[in-house]
């Protein structure tokens, strides 16, 4: 997207960037004073209340794609596209009972890696670490890249500067403040994002009625209104299963299950799902208005900002800038924190230094956060277009972990071999179908294959797992 598309002048962009950077870092330093040990840093003292818990779960799931990609999805796949996107909230709804279960089985656990190691042994744990690090790191890189590109498109801020500032700000406040800072800023970010979306939505509706939008679509883009639009129908469950895989396996979510106060987790994830559910529709429908408003859209990914800027002018552009910055930050901070905790707990502590003291672990977590940030920055710097396509592979990888994790939490008879074969065969066949059939079936097939593997082993070679084995006595 070239600079001439910018809807905001660079000076305004820089001022906004500066205000929010100072705000987030200031809050990070302020909340960071609460951190004494690794447990405080990584899990906010395991005592997060319902309000902050609900908001952080919702905010983390509102990434730059909820605000930017939802309109794109609506523009490409129409009404079903928006609804398909909303089904990602199922990840949050279904994680609600899982979070409760996790807290009960592992009151002293730290990461999703802990669970995989204790439940399925070292081989499954190794595969899990490879998959989850691939997913987390590519997600991190894609968000930082998207951040640089979006700030460039919105305000003409050069890509490298925008990308660097976003990463640097998130690294700084996550390093200083740990999960306290991540959760605290998430609350503010989620409220800003939702309010911004509501204002933008009603502003669009003040310019054009839904009836006019419908008439325009019927004339120019009838497939978007089609109840039987094949590409959109296929997207529904593929997206849903991709979303389940993302939430169920990733330490971003597990760390929250451990961090929330006892009895809070289940309700918090249900509230978060309810908060999240309407957002893809509220943020996405503006794309459907582009035709009726006469907004020409050169490329699908810019439809949201273009429509809002057309309706609200520079006020709208400022709002979009803030909403996008907040949604990027709320996900990048969580990823940095959860991934550095995973590496600290699962690699540094379990493999490299089993005798490490809590204060040492906290320092290690901070250094790993910094290293992750620098690493992501170095990968983002050359802005390699083909790199982004690698990220598509994450779908089958994460979808193949749904069944091992769910049955591992609820079934004693779920076995090591079942989990290993599910992850290897599920992701392998999922990737194969990605290339031989299409991206839109990859997650679906991976989830199905892994389900069959888990079920077969549970039926014919069951284990008799003792739940106490999940509670390590060394905490």
């Amino acid at each position: 997207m070239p600079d001439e598309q910018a809807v905001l002048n660079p000076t305004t962009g820089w001022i906004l960037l500066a205000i929010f950077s100072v705000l987030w870092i200031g809050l990070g330093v302020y909340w960071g004073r609460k951190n004494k040990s690794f447990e405080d840093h990584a899990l906010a003292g395991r005592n997060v209340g319902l309000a902050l818990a609900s908001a952080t779960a919702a905010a983390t799931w509102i990434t730059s794609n909820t605000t930017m990609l939802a309109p794109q999805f609506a523009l490409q796949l129409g009404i079903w596209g928006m609804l398909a996107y909303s089904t990602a909230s199922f990840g949050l709804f279904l994680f609600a009972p899982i979070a409760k279960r996790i807290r009960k089985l592992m009151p002293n656990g730290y990461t999703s890696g802990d669970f995989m190691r204790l439940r399925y042994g070292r081989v499954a744990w190794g595969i899990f670490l490879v998959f989850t690090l691939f997913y987390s790191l590519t997600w991190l890189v894609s968000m930082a890249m998207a951040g640089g590109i979006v700030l460039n498109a919105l305000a003409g801020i050069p890509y490298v500067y925008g990308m660097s500032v976003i990463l640097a700000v998130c690294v700084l406040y996550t390093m200083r403040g740990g999960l306290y800072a991540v959760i605290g800023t998430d609350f503010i970010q989620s409220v800003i994002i939702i309010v911004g979306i509501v204002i933008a939505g009603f502003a669009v509706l003040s310019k054009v009625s839904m009836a006019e939008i419908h008439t325009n679509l019927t004339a120019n883009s009838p497939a978007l209104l089609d109840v039987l639009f094949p590409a959109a129908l296929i997207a529904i469950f593929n997206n849903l299963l991709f979303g389940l895989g993302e939430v169920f396996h990733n330490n971003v979510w597990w760390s929250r299950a451990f961090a929330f106060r006892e009895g809070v987790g289940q309700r918090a994830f249900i509230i978060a799902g309810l908060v999240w559910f309407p957002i893809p529709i509220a943020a996405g429908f503006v794309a459907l208005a582009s035709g009726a408003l006469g907004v020409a859209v050169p490329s699908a990914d810019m439809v949201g900002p273009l429509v809002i800027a057309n309706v609200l002018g520079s006020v709208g552009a400022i709002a979009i800038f803030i909403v996008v910055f907040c949604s990027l930050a709320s996900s990048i901070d969580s990823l940095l924190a959860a991934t550095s905790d995973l590496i600290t707990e699962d690699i540094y502590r379990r493999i490299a230094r089993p005798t490490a003291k809590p204060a040492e672990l906290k320092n290690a977590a901070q250094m790993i956060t910094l290293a992750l940030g620098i690493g992501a920055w170095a990968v983002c710097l050359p802005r390699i277009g083909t790199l982004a396509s690698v990220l598509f592979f994450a779908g089958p990888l994460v979808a193949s972990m749904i069944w091992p994790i769910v049955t591992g939490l609820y079934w004693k008879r779920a076995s090591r071999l079942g989990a290993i074969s599910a992850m290897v065969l599920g992701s392998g066949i999922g990737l194969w179908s990605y290339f031989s059939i299409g991206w839109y079936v990859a997650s679906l097939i991976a989830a199905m294959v892994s389900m069959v593997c888990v079920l077969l082993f549970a039926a014919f070679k069951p284990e008799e797992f003792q739940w106490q084995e999940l509670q390590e006595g060394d905490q």
Partner: protein
Amino acid sequence: MSFSSGFLTALVYLALIWCAGSSIALLALLWAEWKEGRLW
């Protein structure tokens, strides 16, 4: 077969009002826990 204008209108207004309500609910929840000093 197409989604009707009425369905689309209802869907969008419901989503927007829902969003507005959820932001208020989050703030109310925050206020309630903050008063009791039970935020975290």
